[in-house]
C-alpha cells in the first residue's frame, strides 16, 4: 500500500475507492513517522496539504478529474511557492516568502495536484550529496548512514521511502538523475527549454531544468506532461518544441529495432565494479528485448566536468548576486557601511560550497581569465554537443550508468570537493548538451541501488521513456523498496 504509483492512486480515486483527503492523510502520516529519520522535508504545512486535498475532492465532484487530480507531489525547496517559505535550503533566504508560484507549480495546481511541502536539497542546488543544506543533510532510505545523492536529495528520499508517491526536482548537472539512481527511483531531466524555469531559483541558467522523480517511468511521464510547454515568461522556454504523446511512449514493451549506443567513455576504470556489472547486465537485457547495442564514442566526455565547473559557477556567481540583503533575506546585525553589509550578510548567509562556487565563477569571468576559462569552456560545450549529434546519427538512444558509484556515507567526501564533483561525471555532459536524460533502477551494488541512465536526442523524451518503460516492464527493479520503510506509516 505505501508504495503506490501515481496511476494506482489515480485509478483508486477515479473509481471512488478513496479520496484525495484520505490519500493526503496517509502520506502526511508517513512523513510524520519517518521525516525525523530522513530529514527529507524542510517545510510542511499539514493543514494546507489537507485543505488542497479537500479542494481537489470538491473539484472532482463538481467538474470531474484533471490530469493529476488529488495526487500528492512534493517539491524541492528551489521552487518558489506562494504558500509558505522558499529557502533553497540557504540561510541567506532567511524569512523569504515568494509572492508568486513558479510556473511549474502553477501548472501542477492547474492539473489538480496536491502540493506536499518543500523537500531538502543542497544549498542553491550546489552539491551531489544533500550535505550542503542549511537544514542539515537528508538521508538515504536504503541506508540512513548514507547520502541520498543531490542536489534533489529530499525529493529522492521522499519518493524512495514513500513519503510522497512523486516529487519535483531540478537538474543542473545531474541533480535529478544522480539522487534517483542512488535511491532506486526513476527521474527525468527533460530537454533544456521543455519546462519553464520561471520561478525556479536559478543556479546555472543555461543548464537548469526541472523534472519529475517518481516510482516508475509512467509516473514521470504524467508529471512531465503536466509541467512542460511554452511559457512566454521564460525566453529560453521553447515555443515550437515538438509535441510528444507522453503516456503512449510508456506503453512500449519491447525494444525491437532500437539502436542503443554504449559509449566507451562511460564504462571506465575507477568506477564501482558492481555498478558496472549491473549496467552491463541491463544492456544484455535490452538485447534480449530486441535492441541492438552499438559501441560508440563520445570523445569529449573527459572534458565535461572541467567545462561544467567553469560554466555553472560563472553563471551562479551572477545569479547569486541578488542575495545582497538589500530587499529580502538575511541581513547582518549593525552593518557599519554598505560594504560591511554586503560582505557580512553574504558571509553569514551562504554556506562554504556556495561561496566556493561564487568565488570560482567570479574568478573564471574576471578580466584576463575570461578567455582561458569561460570562453574555452563554452567551446568545449559545443564539442560535447557535437559528440552527441554525431552519436545520434548512429543510434536512437544512449545507455550509461547514472553514477559511477552507489550512495556513499555522510561526510565521506565533504572535505574533498573534487572527488565529490566526480560523482556527477556521467550526468553532466547531458546538461551541457541540453538533452533529455532519465535514470531508472537496474540493480544493486552492496545492497545499494544502481541507476541506469538513458540519454536521448533533443526533444525525444518519447524515445527515452519508451526504452525505459520497456526495460522497467521486463525487470523488477522498480518494485524494490527499502524494507525499513515498507510498512504503513501509523504502525512505525
Amino acid at each position, binding site marked *: 500500500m505505501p508504495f503506490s504509483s501515481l496511476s494506482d492512486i489515480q485509478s483508486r480515486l477515479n473509481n471512488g475507492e478513496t479520496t484525495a483527503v484520505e490519500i493526503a492523510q496517509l502520506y502526511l502520516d508517513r512523513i510524520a513517522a519517518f521525516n525525523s529519520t530522513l530529514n527529507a522535508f524542510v517545510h510542511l504545512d499539514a493543514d494546507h496539504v489537507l485543505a488542497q486535498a479537500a479542494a481537489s475532492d470538491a473539484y472532482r465532484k463538481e467538474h470531474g478529474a484533471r490530469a493529476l487530480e488529488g495526487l500528492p507531489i512534493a517539491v524541492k525547496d528551489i521552487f518558489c511557492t506562494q504558500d509558505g517559505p522558499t529557502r533553497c535550503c540557504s540561510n541567506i533566504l532567511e524569512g523569504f516568502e515568494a509572492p508568486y508560484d513558479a510556473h511549474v507549480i502553477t501548472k501542477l495546481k492547474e492539473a489538480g495536484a496536491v502540493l506536499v511541502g518543500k523537500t531538502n536539497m543542497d544549498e542553491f542546488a550546489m552539491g551531489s550529496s544533500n550535505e550542503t543544506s542549511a537544514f542539515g543533510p537528508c538521508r538515504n532510505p536504503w541506508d540512513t548512514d548514507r547520502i541520498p545523492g543531490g542536489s534533489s536529495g529530499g525529493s529522492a528520499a521522499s519518493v524512495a521511502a514513500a513519503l510522497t508517491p512523486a516529487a519535483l526536482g531540478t537538474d543542473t548537472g545531474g541533480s535529478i538523475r544522480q539522487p534517483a539512481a542512488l535511491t532506486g527511483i526513476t527521474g527525468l531531466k527533460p530537454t533544456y527549454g521543455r519546462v519553464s524555469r520561471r520561478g525556479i531559483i536559478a543556479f546555472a541558467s543555461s543548464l537548469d531544468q526541472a523534472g519529475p522523480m517518481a516510482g516508475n517511468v509512467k509516473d514521470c511521464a504524467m508529471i512531465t506532461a503536466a509541467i512542460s510547454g511554452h511559457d512566454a515568461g521564460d525566453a*529560453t522556454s521553447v515555443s515550437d518544441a515538438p509535441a510528444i504523446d507522453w503516456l503512449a511512449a510508456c506503453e512500449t514493451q519491447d525494444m525491437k529495432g532500437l539502436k542503443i549506443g554504449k559509449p566507451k567513455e562511460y564504462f571506465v576504470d575507477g568506477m564501482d565494479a558492481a555498478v558496472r556489472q549491473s549496467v552491463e547486465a541491463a544492456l544484455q537485457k535490452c538485447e534480449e528485448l530486441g535492441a541492438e547495442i552499438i559501441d560508440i564514442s563520445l570523445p569529449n566526455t573527459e572534458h565535461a566536468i572541467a567545462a561544467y565547473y567553469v560554466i555553472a559557477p560563472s553563471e551562479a556567481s551572477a545569479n547569486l548576486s541578488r542575495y545582497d540583503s538589500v530587499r529580502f533575506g538575511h541581513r547582518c546585525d549593525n552593518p557599519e557601511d554598505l560594504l560591511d553589509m554586503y560582505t557580512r550578510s553574504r558571509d553569514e548567509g551562504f554556506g562554504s560550497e556556495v561561496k566556493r562556487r561564487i568565488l570560482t565563477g567570479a574568478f573564471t569571468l574576471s578580466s584576463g581569465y575570461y578567455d582561458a576559462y569561460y570562453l574555452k569552456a563554452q567551446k568545449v560545450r559545443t564539442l560535447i554537443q557535437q559528440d552527441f549529434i554525431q552519436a545520434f546519427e548512429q543510434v536512437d538512444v544512449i545507455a550509461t550508468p547514472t553514477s559511477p558509484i552507489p550512495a556513499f556515507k555522510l561526510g565521506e567526501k565533504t572535505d574533498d570537493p573534487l572527488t565529490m564533483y566526480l560523482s556527477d561525471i556521467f550526468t553532466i555532459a547531458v546538461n551541457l548538451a541540453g538533452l533529455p536524460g532519465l535514470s531508472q533502477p537496474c540493480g544493486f551494488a552492496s545492497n545499494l541501488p544502481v541507476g541506469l541512465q538513458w540519454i536521448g536526442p533533443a526533444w525525444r523524451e518519447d524515445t527515452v521513456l519508451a526504452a525505459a518503460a520497456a526495460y522497467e516492464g521486463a525487470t523488477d527493479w522498480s518494485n524494490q523498496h527499502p524494507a525499513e520503510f515498507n510498512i504503513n506509516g501509523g504502525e512505525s
Partner: protein
Amino acid sequence: MSWETVIGLEVHCQVNTDTKAFCGCSTVFGAEPNTQTCPVCLGMPGQLPVLNTVAVDKSILTGLAINAHINLESKFDRKNYFYPDLPKGYQITQFTVPIVEGGYIDIPTKDGGEKRLGVTRIHMEEDAGKSMHEGLDAVSHIDLNRSGVPLMEIVSEPDMRSADEAIAYLKQLHQLIRFLGVSGGDMEKGQFRCDANVSVRRKGEPFGTRTEMKNMNSFRFIKQAIEFEVVRQIEIIEDGGEVIQESRLWDSVKSESRSMRSKEEAHDYRYFPEPDLPPLRVSQQEVDAIKAGMPELPGELRKRFEAEYGLSSYDADVLSQTREISVWYESLVAAHPSDPKRCANWLANELLGRLKEAGKDLADSPVSAKRLAGLLDRVGDNTINGKSAKDILDDMMESDDDADTIIEAKGLKQVSDTGAIDTIILEVMAANPDQVAGYRGGKDKLMGFFVGQVMKASRGKANPGMVNQRLAELLKG
C-alpha cells in the same frame, strides 16, 4: 606648439516605451517610489527577463537614422557590480555584439559646410534604480521605479575636436531621437545623459591619455566640463606631469571636476553572455519595414522647408525641431496655402510662444491648425490688422470660437474705407492744431504721433497702411 582636443561621447538615452525593457511595469516618470515595480525588476529569486520588442524596434530605427549597420543577430550580456539600486547585482546590456554598429552624424561647420562624426555603436540595456541619500540620516532610500527602464547607449568615435563640436553632435542627436519618437529626450528627467571622454595631444601626435566625465545632463554643463578638463590636462602636461586615466565627476555648483575613481580602482564588470536571453534575431524584412516607416529627418526637412516654402534658415530650423512641429506646420500650410511664410511666423513666434507661457506642448494646443488658418485668412485679406490678430489669438487660446466669430463679436473688422479713415484723420488734425502746424513747418517726425492718434481713435481697427497713406495726403494741406 598648438594643442588639439579629442572628444568621444557616450549618450545614455531612455527609449520611450510604455513598459520596461524586461517586464511589464510602467515607465511613467514621477510616480510614488517603488510603485512601478514587479518581481522581475525587483530582482526577486527565479524571475526571468522577457525582452520588450518595442525597445528593439526603436533602437533599430535610431540605427537606420544614423546610417548604421543593423546586426541581424545581437547578444545580451551581464555586467556585474554590486550597488543597492541594481537589484540583480548585474545589468543586462549588450557588450560583445550590439544591435547597431558603425553610423555617423553630420554637424554644420562654421564655414557653412558639414563635418561627419562617427558613431561606433548603439547597444540596448536596462537602467538601474535611484539611490537617495540627501536629507536622510544614516540611511539611504532606494526607488526602483526606474530599474529596468530601457536605454540605448550611443557611443561615438573620438571624432570631436572641440567642446563646440561635442555640443553640436549632442544637439543633433538629441533632436534626432525626439524626431524619431524613440525617446522623450527630457534631460531634466535623466532621459538623455552624457559621458564625455576627453584627451589632449599636440597636433599630429597619437591620442593622449583620456579621462571620462560621468553622467552630465545639460548641454551647458557638458560644455563647461569639457572646457575645464581640456585646460586641466594641458596644464598638467605643460607642467611636466602625466594625465591619469580616471573617471571624473562634474560639480556644476563649483564649476570644477573631481576624481571619482582611477583606472586601478575601476570595476571588473566580469561581462559574460546573458543565459536567460537567447541571441536577439531580427529579419532583414523587419529592418526594411522599420526603414520604410522612418519619418523625414530634420536635416532633409529643413532643406525642403527652405526650398519649398521659401523660409529663412532660422524659421526652417525652428519648424523642423520636432516631428510634431513640422507636421503641425505643414497642416497649417495646407489650411492657409496662400502664404507659407506667414504660417511660419505665426506658428514659430506667436503660437509656440503662447504655449510655452502656458506651459503646454503643441499636442495640447487649444488652437488647432485649422482655427489658426482661419485667423491667418483674415490677416491675408486685410479684414483685420496684425495687432488685432494677436489679440484674437489670445482670445482663441481661451475659447473655442473661430476668428470670424471673435472679429464679429468684438467689432474688430479693419476699417479700410477711405471716407471713414479721412473723417478720423480730420478730427485728429482739428484736435491737434499745433502739431499740424509743426509738421507742416518741417517736423516730419510728428508723422508717428499722428499715426498713433488715428489708430487710437479707431480703436486699432484702421488699416495701418491706409492711415499712413491718407495722413501724408491730408497733412500736406
